[in-house]
């Protein structure tokens, strides 16, 4: 029973660290990326509006750029979704490896 408790404790320790490394850090990075995207979009819109007012851009070019930003937002969302999937895959693999490692460490 003592061996099993030690095994469970070891798994908990490893999985806790794994969750921090793969999931919590991803969440922080994803939020930072989203903020950066929004800030860039805002700056671009301001620039294009100024260029339109100055006659440097035609109306249809301005609309093209705005629609392009929408396309970019979709690509950004696809990237975020993909990175989330990759982090989840890494976490699942890590949990399995943690169980294996703890079993060898406890019982061998």
């Amino acid at each position: 029973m003592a061996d099993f408790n030690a095994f469970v404790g070891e798994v908990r320790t490893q999985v806790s660290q794994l969750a921090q490394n793969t999931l919590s850090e991803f969440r922080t990075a994803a939020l930072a990326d989203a903020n950066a995207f929004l800030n860039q979009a805002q700056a671009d819109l301001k620039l294009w509006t100024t260029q339109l007012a100055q006659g440097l851009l035609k109306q249809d070019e301005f609309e093209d750029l705005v629609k392009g930003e929408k396309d970019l937002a979709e690509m950004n969302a696809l990237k975020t979704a993909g990175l989330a999937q990759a982090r989840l895959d890494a976490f699942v693999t890590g949990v399995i490896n943690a169980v294996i490692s703890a079993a060898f460490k406890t019982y061998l």
Partner: protein
Amino acid sequence: MRRRRRTAVEKGGLWVALALAAWVAQGCSTIALYSEAAYRQATAAKAEALILMGKANEPFDQHRAEVDALRLDVEKAYEYAKGEPKNTLSTRQWEILKDPKGNLLGGFLARWQKEGTISLTFIEDKRDQVSRAFDEITGLETGKNKPAAPKNP
């Protein structure tokens, strides 16, 4: 009641079961692994696209062959992504980028072809957008999990 001791066979079977579970888990990924080839295709296409877009203030007919070459390279990258299993997100990114009815690279090349030349201001603004679009593609690719290193023979 005394606990029955595990036999050597049962202990060995436990390790085999755990190893098998690890092996199965490794194969149950939800997204494709990182591809060096896909990354190189994207970075090469980005450089090619940005250079060519910079020439769009010149008549399209003077650069038709270069545009065709770029479209072919982008199509190759798209087909490569599409052919990889569990790679729908990267594939969809390429679709958005190359769509001639869209508003990124494909749409820009279509506009250039239709209008003949494009203003420098629009070129610079659209180049920035297309550059960011490629960065979204390479950002996803580099964020994928790396395949296991091959063992030395």
